[in-house]
């Protein structure tokens, strides 16, 4: 009987310990999540700052100056080809001279 009682007490104690460990781990996990969340926010905010600094340092004049100091001929990048605008008449098929060819002049 005493052995049984001891066993019950030990099992109860062990269960309590496991629950305590589990609780502690849960708390630590919550703490870790909070910490990571904060790190993420801080990194986000650092990115915002860097984005602003990059924008401030990439003034068109400065870019042009940098290009001028580099060798070689530089040309603007032409806009991508686009279809010409169509009027309602053209869309309705009523235009005698539909003009929907690709524009490659840009």
């Amino acid at each position, binding site marked *: 009987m005493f052995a049984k009682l001891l066993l019950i007490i030990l099992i109860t104690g062990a269960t309590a310990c496991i629950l305590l460990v589990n609780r502690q781990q849960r708390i630590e996990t919550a703490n870790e999540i909070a910490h990571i969340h904060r790190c993420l926010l801080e990194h986000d*905010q650092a990115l915002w700052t860097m984005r602003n600094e990059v*924008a401030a340092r990439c003034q068109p004049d400065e870019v042009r100056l940098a290009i001028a100091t580099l060798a070689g001929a530089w040309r603007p990048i032409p806009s991508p080809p686009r279809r010409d605008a169509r009027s309602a008449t053209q869309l309705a098929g009523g*235009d005698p001279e539909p003009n929907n060819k690709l524009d490659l002049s840009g």
Partner: protein
Amino acid sequence: MRHEDQLRSHQSDRATAWTKLVVFAMIAGFGLLLVRVGQMKLRPDPQLARAVSPRLSSLSELAKRGDLLDARHRVLATSTVAYRLFVDPTVVSDAQTIAVDIAEVIDADPVEIDQKILAWPGRRYVVIDHELDDWQAQAIRQADLSGVGLQAHLVRHYPHGETGAGVIGMVGFEQTGVGGMEHLFEASLAPRDGRLTYLRDANRRALWIDPEAHRPAEDGRDVQLSIDLVIQQFIEQRLEEAVNEFNAGGGRAIVLDCRTGEIRAMCDILNPRPDWDEITTDPGRDIHRALGRNRCVTDPYEPGSTFKPFVWAVATELSRAQPEEILPTPSAPAYRTSQGRRIRDSHYHGPVSWRTVLIKSINSGMAIVAERMTTNELQGAVARFGFGRKTGCGLPGESPGLVTNSANWNHYTQTSVPVGHEIAVTPMQMVRAFSVFARDGTLPAIRITAATTEDETYPVRHQVIPPQIAKLVREVLRDVMLHGTGRRAQSERYRIFAKSGTAQLPKPQGGGYFEDRYVSSFIGGAPLDDPRIVVLCVIDDPDKSRGHYGGAITGPVVRDIIDYTLTYLGVEPDAGDDHDASMAAAD
């Protein structure tokens, strides 16, 4: 044997008794524990209640306001986090030395800090610095001074300074837009701060975060404008030069991508000149440039001769005059209309063709053909190009312009409107209407944001004039540059088609016009065969002693803007022999 049995039985009874006692004691102990727990739960001691009450803390998560981007994704406006330094004087460890402690950490003046704290006796939130540098915020965190805190908040930055300030606008103290695009796109740009409620321990460490108690921060959406920063910088610089050169009251310029209807650049300058104040003022602009109204959409002006192409196009379409038809324009002052009204011209050429009327900007020729049109036809022409109603670009305070209504439309109106008088239009309406000639006769929808899909880029608009008339007007306007009032604005690179205008400045209180004060304007597009842009420049009240004709003052500005913009866009020059021939003719 019997004795042993008795002993064993006695021992067993004792063990059973002890077991019962231990079990009873445990049950009693647990029972007492339960009673105590129940008591603490139901009627706790006040001190205990304070200690065991849920320790919940709330945190606000900053969300970022959306960025404003230009057509090529350059950042025009963005937000970063800054830290505000505050003090709670009631909980600082030593109120006498706190100012010195803070000053040592952030390298500031202790007297100034002390004055700030003493200025608000009893207050628990005293701001010492609204925007600390990063190193200062870091130093404050490390110093861990009691009663001293940091508060994160957003700060708006405009990385390109005042470029485009009038268009971009700005945000107020609460980080909400108070002008320009910042205000217009407030709903998209505005962020929603997050909130986090968590259980904490005595050391304020997070013990548990309930997922339902966390509302994540939602950043505002970025808005991409159709404005191109490089073009914007150039037109601001060029327009300012012109305004200063002619000591003008102000100037306005717009660059429109005539294919898509996107505004590439827009600029409005007011020159604080003494006698200009009586014409117009802008109190908002006096506070900050970004708070001024955008006169490109809010303030109509009389377009003068730049309005002639619209009437010319419709009259030609209606066959009220043929391009080569010779009209009885006078050789000497002055032409009188059928109602006896005198129409003056700056030069008298004698009978000329309908085409030449537009090239040489002859008022009498326009009046002759306007009298052949019915009132409805002329009113229809004005309405067709979108005058008298808002463009729908969405910019705040847009004016529909001033167009005489049918009831008041008389003979004077019939002969005034074709030469750009008795009508007022906004620069935005003008570039939109003029782009009809640069397209296939269709009126574009004006966009201030970049189109993200092809459907957005090419919304279907109604046909204003037939494509062949649009092309014809372009050719005649090209002759304006070669043989007319635009000769001084010739480009060596591109074949520009354009029209100049010089209108008298109306008196602010009504009662006619100033005799010697003008509004000079010039509107043009290029390249001739496949137009990409339309540019308008308006110079308000230039100093007459330095010049006042649109072709001479605003023409070169438009030319420079077209040259710069098309080169920047990578459009191949198309002037070549055309320019050489026109120069030879001019010689």
